[in-house]
């Protein structure tokens, strides 16, 4: 069936396109009108896009939508996940999550924290998120097997093979490291941990673990660069941690998760923990401009009650006393485990307001919106459903000024936000939410509207209220089929889970089998994610490695 999306303002920065025109679709893919197979044919279906902005479907790179810790957050805070009729909840079921993303025009979402020891449950949960294509990043960097290999100087090939084995066994799309060594240090009593601190029991620094993983991801040609959650998240002076980590990458590709939580310059450099913080967004934007190998996502803060969910158990433990309501979970797991600390970002609070301002500042100072991707680190900075409002603020200086005026003065005094005149264009919005994240994940079939792309497309009614515009897409197509009309789901497609096609080395598989049997009394098969776990469905789609 040939479909024509007719007469919309088509925005595709990857093709330098921002003009009224058509988009043609056949067999779930975008086709060129000049294609001989299409030319001169009348469309079987025409979708009127007059008055609409037409973009590729949105792509989420970092949102905690599945896994043991997301489950625990729901069990810790039943009140937060309550589902009301007609009002899906971003803290609620997978079905609600898929629905809420789809109606904002998002068609792909990645869960960034899948521990290999809990891969099966995470993948079962991801598969229950409808409407979207999904993927998970497998987390390494605190697991005993990896740390043993590094400690014993087993060599870069052994580390590479273990990373490949974990990717293949958990059916992940990429690799993430979370405060490398920090969880291990926490279990040995540490409460502070930085890049050059040693994991006591292994005599390894965080830097050694990080560089081992950076090398492995590069050698394996994993499309998504190593996804890094640095040490010292949320502390004044955390900007130093992020920049040290970036320098440690020495030109290798690296992605920084939720950079806003590190864009905190210590006001008193001699007493960083007591003097408070000011925005380090200009510093980070400047460093990013000089390092084309680096990308980041924002971790924008929005106001209200949320739950923070992290495998950085050292950081979650230090944050426990700020829990609101006053209850929290910390699981010292087989590698990281995880911590859940409920938190309320107060719109009248100077700290929350400053965090809010810093996130916007990071995006508005961005040297390249494709490399400063919009996230709220859902639910850590707040729910992903805040994206429409955030885009509105990026596009509208006046709305921003009004918003800032309603917050404590710290937000303006300790950040440069009020002095920034930039207003995002639609092309820049598409870079921030489509082409940037798709390139980052190495998914060349999405994030753009060029021929050959998957027909994941969002149409938004162009209206001055950008919040309303992006909250409820006029139409959303997934693989060429309409799944949302006027902001409501009309067809419950189930999407696929994207997993990297990577070969595991047989020698490492044997070595891991012995290791796992000794440690867990269960071998590799117990950690696997076979198709048979999803009876009656074809869930996975392979994504090739870089060539």
């Amino acid at each position: 069936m040939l479909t024509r999306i007719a007469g919309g303002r088509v925005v595709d920065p990857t093709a330098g396109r921002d003009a009224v025109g058509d988009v043609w679709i056949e067999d779930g893919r975008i086709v060129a009108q000049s294609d001989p197979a299409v030319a001169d044919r009348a469309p079987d279906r025409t979708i009127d896009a007059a008055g609409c902005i037409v973009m590729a479907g949105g792509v989420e790179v970092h949102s905690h939508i599945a896994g043991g810790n997301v489950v625990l957050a729901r069990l810790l805070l039943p009140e937060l996940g309550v589902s009301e009729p007609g009002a899906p909840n971003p803290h609620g079921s997978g079905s609600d999550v898929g629905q809420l993303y789809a109606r904002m025009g998002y068609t792909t979402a990645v869960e960034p924290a899948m521990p290999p020891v809990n891969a099966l449950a995470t993948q079962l949960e991801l598969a229950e998120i409808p409407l979207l294509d999904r993927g998970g990043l497998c987390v390494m960097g605190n697991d005993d097997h990896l740390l043993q290999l590094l400690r014993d100087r087993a060599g870069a090939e052994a580390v590479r093979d273990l990373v490949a084995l974990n990717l293949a066994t958990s059916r992940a799309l990429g690799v993430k490291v979370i405060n490398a060594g920090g969880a291990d240090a926490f279990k040995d009593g540490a409460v502070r941990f930085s890049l050059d601190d040693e994991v006591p029991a292994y005599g390894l620094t965080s830097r050694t673990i990080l560089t081992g993983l950076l090398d492995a991801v590069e050698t394996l040609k994993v499309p998504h660069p190593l996804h890094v959650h640095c040490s010292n998240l949320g502390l004044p002076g955390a900007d130093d941690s992020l920049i040290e980590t970036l320098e440690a990458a020495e030109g290798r590709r690296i992605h920084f998760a939720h950079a806003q939580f590190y864009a905190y310059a210590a006001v008193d450099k001699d007493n960083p923990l007591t003097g408070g913080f000011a925005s380090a967004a200009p510093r980070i934007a400047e460093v990013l401009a000089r390092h084309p190998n680096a990308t980041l996502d924002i971790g924008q803060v929005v106001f209200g009650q949320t739950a923070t969910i992290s495998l950085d158990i050292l950081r979650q433990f230090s944050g426990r006393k700020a829990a609101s309501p006053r209850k929290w979970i910390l699981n010292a797991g087989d590698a990281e485990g995880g911590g859940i600390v409920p938190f309320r970002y107060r719109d009248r609070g100077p700290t929350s307001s400053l965090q809010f301002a810093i996130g916007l500042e990071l995006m508005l100072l961005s040297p390249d919106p494709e490399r400063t991707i919009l996230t709220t680190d859902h639910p850590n900075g707040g729910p992903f459903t805040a994206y429409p409002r955030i885009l509105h603020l990026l596009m509208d200086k006046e709305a921003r000024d009004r918003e800032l005026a309603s917050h404590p003065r710290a937000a303006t005094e300790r950040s440069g936000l009020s002095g920034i005149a930039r207003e995002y264009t639609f092309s820049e919005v598409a870079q921030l939410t489509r082409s940037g994240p798709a390139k980052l994940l190495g998914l060349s079939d999405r994030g753009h509207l060029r021929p050959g792309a998957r027909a994941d497309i969002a149409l938004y009614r162009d209206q001055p209220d950008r919040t309303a515009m992006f909250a409820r897409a006029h139409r959303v197509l997934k693989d060429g089929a309409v799944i949302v009309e006027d902001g409501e789901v009309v067809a419950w497609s189930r999407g696929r889970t994207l997993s990297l096609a990577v070969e595991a080395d047989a020698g490492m598989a044997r070595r891991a089998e012995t290791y796992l049997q000794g440690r867990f009394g269960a071998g590799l098969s117990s950690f696997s994610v076979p198709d048979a776990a999803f009876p009656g469905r074809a869930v996975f789609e392979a994504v090739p490695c870089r060539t």
Partner: protein
Amino acid sequence: MTAWIDGQAVERDAAVAAAAALLAGARAPLVAGLCAEAAAVQAAFDLARAIGASLDPAAGAPLYADLGALAAGGAMTTTPAEARGRADLVLALGRAPWASGLLHDLAAEGPVRGRAAGRPRAVVALGGPGDGGVQHVAYPVDAAGLPASVGLLRGLVAGRVAGPHPLADLAVRLREALYGVVVVDPAEIGALGTEMLNGLVKDLNETTRCFALPLGDPHQGRAVAQVAAWSTGQGPRVGFGRGHPEHDPWRFDAARQVAAGEVDAALWLASLPAPLPAWTRNLPTVALLGASQDDAIRGDEARVVIGVGVPGEAFGAALWHPGRAAIAWHEATAPRPAASPAAAILAEILTQTSADLRSGLAGRPAPHPEPASC
């Protein structure tokens, strides 16, 4: 034969049709047991949503001792493998740890990872029967019971209870351990006792490391809790009577609901062994029962009985793995290609009960009619 209606052997398709008719015609159906592989539990949630049923796992009561404490105050926990690798002190609380194989494993070895590596591992007990095979130090339980003793211990650790006390020495041991682990069955000490224990463990972490290691129930409860959380946003005792999931551990307690006459039909799902409640014979019930051999089911357990394959035996399945404290893949140990998985039967029942929903996506909610705020 693997299917029965009113005790009479029938073709499976006839039993599926009877099951669908029984459930579709119910005003307030119940889906219970849920002692099954993840795919079948998932299918049961999908079915419950479609027919407006409430759910309660066989593991409901013990599970909610844990979940209740969790929702009240949170927890600080570790895993069996971390306890084996790191603990220099293991406190067995109550009787249940002695009935688990875990305590024997812990007593047989010492810590090999982390800062306690190479130290001896001490096993101490509060309120348990002990075991001649496990060398341990036993502490007496206060006359007021085990939960009260945990409260006392918390007071001693925090320095709020002063003076000589039979548990003072235990408090010192906990404070001095580098990686203490408290093995406990939340069902044995109840939600309040578990909450007190979680407080004790959190207090200890102000100066050292100590974690609770809750023993799971034997009926897949902790796997069901996960499927429930991602299917409904809540724990497993939910009702779909009003279309959207409502969580209420008291209201949707299956035993209470049946006793109060609030349920008019039920589905009992147990592809793995679970004690059959008496009500399956009194209330119009569909029972999906796992059996290694066809003759293990009598056929009179409920109005409609359908035999299903045992997961992890007849076919590979995602099941709770107590040693790993995770949902894990279990290969088939005695493959029986002819055995029907419960998930497939439930999908057939769903198809027959909800022809309307099938026009959308089986098991998915119908699109919500009203707008939501974003």
